[in-house]
């Protein structure tokens, strides 16, 4: 009897409310997928239908056939992967320096990296547009890699400094005693140990680049068209093909969600560390 009451109490105060939150969190995706597999004429006929009478993959076929979504995916991949490699490559040594050395300008530089992450996109967008025009980088992959580094560099520095801080200094000292230079101690010992944290940071950078829209729509047009811009372009002037649009949306979110699940634990540890101690 007592066990049964306990079970119902937990059901009402824990499982049901949580299921409601989950329904809210996942509902839009469920609806998106249902929309993508519903034939367009069925929707015109019936309005809202919770499950299609004749589920179809025609939207996905059109997405990869006529619309050429694959080339958008390729553009997105090139931009995101380059942003990730450039961003991490530039910042990994900086994060190590912040974590391991105490030097005169340390405080100022650290504050600088924290603060620039918070500038509004619109502040940098206009000047970057002019720079891209003057240098002839407009509508190329490079311009997005440059634009995205305005937020990926400060983010990566800050995240990876935290991950390096979690590695005991004795490891550096032992490496130096064993005859490493300070630089090779970093390169051969500390960076390999920090690899999970670096990977999580890198994947987060990849995801933010993959999802970015405002810079992309302003700085690229014909030659480079990333997925978010392509999706927005599918919104027609008078009729929106919701089935196609939702198919594209689900397909574009999939890689990001998969990547995210691999690193979520590590990433959350890094992001919440500062806040909890504060």
């Amino acid at each position: 009897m007592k066990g049964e009451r306990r079970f119902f109490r937990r059901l009402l105060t824990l499982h049901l409310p949580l299921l409601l939150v989950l329904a809210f969190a996942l509902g839009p995706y469920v609806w998106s997928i249902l929309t993508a597999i519903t034939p367009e004429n069925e929707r015109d006929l019936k309005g809202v239908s919770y499950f299609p009478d004749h589920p179809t993959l025609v939207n996905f076929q059109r997405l990869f056939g006529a619309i050429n979504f694959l080339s958008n995916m390729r553009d997105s991949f090139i931009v995101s992967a380059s942003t990730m490699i450039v961003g991490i490559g530039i910042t990994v040594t900086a994060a190590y320096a912040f974590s391991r050395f105490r030097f005169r300008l340390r405080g100022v530089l650290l504050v600088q990296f924290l603060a620039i992450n918070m500038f509004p996109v619109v502040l940098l967008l206009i000047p970057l547009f002019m720079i891209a025009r003057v240098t002839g980088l407009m509508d190329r992959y490079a311009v997005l890699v440059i634009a995205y580094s305005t937020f990926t560099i400060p983010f990566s520095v800050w995240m990876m400094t935290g991950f390096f801080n979690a590695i005991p200094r004795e490891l550096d000292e032992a490496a130096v005693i064993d005859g490493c230079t300070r630089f090779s101690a970093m390169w051969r010992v500390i960076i390999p140990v920090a690899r999970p944290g670096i990977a999580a940071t890198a994947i987060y950078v990849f995801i933010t680049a993959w999802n970015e829209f405002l810079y992309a729509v302003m700085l690229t047009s014909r030659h480079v068209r990333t997925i978010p811009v392509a999706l927005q372009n599918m919104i027609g002037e008078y009729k929106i093909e919701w089935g196609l649009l939702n198919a594209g949306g689900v397909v574009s979110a999939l890689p990001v969600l998969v990547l995210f699940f691999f690193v979520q634990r590590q990433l959350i540890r890094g992001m919440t560390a500062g806040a909890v101690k504060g």
Partner: protein
Amino acid sequence: MRISRARTDILPYVLLSPAVVATLLVVFVPIVQAASYSLMSFILWKPRARGFVFLANYRAMLSDPVFWISLKNSLVWIVGVVILQLLLGLGTALLLNREFAWRGLARALILIPWVTPSVLTALMWRWMYDGNAGVINDLLVRVGILKEYFPFLANGKTALGAIMVALMWQGFPFFAIMILAGLQAIPLELYEAAEVDGAGPGRKFFRVTLPLLVPVLFTAILLRIIWVANSLDIIFIMTEGGPGYSTYTLPLYSYLKAYRGMDFGYGSTLAVTITILLAAVVAFYVARTLKSGDQL
């Protein structure tokens, strides 16, 4: 550890130089440019009329009714979204902090909205709000809250609120995870002590949990204010500011000036103004983070 002094003195600067040089070039040079554009008459397709007008743009801004509408909407937007995200995030965190079998799964699934691209968030919600075949309308009619379909995004009274719900969806997992980390850092002994003193669940929440959570909540709120204040892509895709100016926020106004009107002078003026208005919040956050001494 004592290694030759001279080398350790320059090594950190060498290690930092790529990141510092890169930020100088892609962030600081553009900021100086933006500041100077904000003092110029600068419309991209009118090259002849380009020139310094000093504070004329700022003066024009103060007498621009759209600026004031956007400012007001921005405040409603920031306060509304942050409160919505905070409440739902706090509730979710309290649930996730309990022990149960599918906790890991639930925590992972809750995060999905947070990694969803803004464009997709905006499209999904725009579709769900649709006035002809939107699922939200259908559900509300079925439950009896609405008599007939209502065009949430096409009505000036409801559009901003409707978009705020979409941003709440995208952002609440962040609060949930931050608060959850804070909850897990509260020592269990405190609850045990409260129980010994005869405290019920309500008392435990208000006397133990909430006070100890304040620093985490504070940091999370500051971060969210900055993020929500700057986020404009969802509004841009859902309504482009309409109907009328009912969903114009300051960043959106600035973006539309630059993107649609190619008015880089006035667009920069608005952007610089946003930056100055947000500077206080940013300074507050930076000071807090430095004081916590985590990275320092």
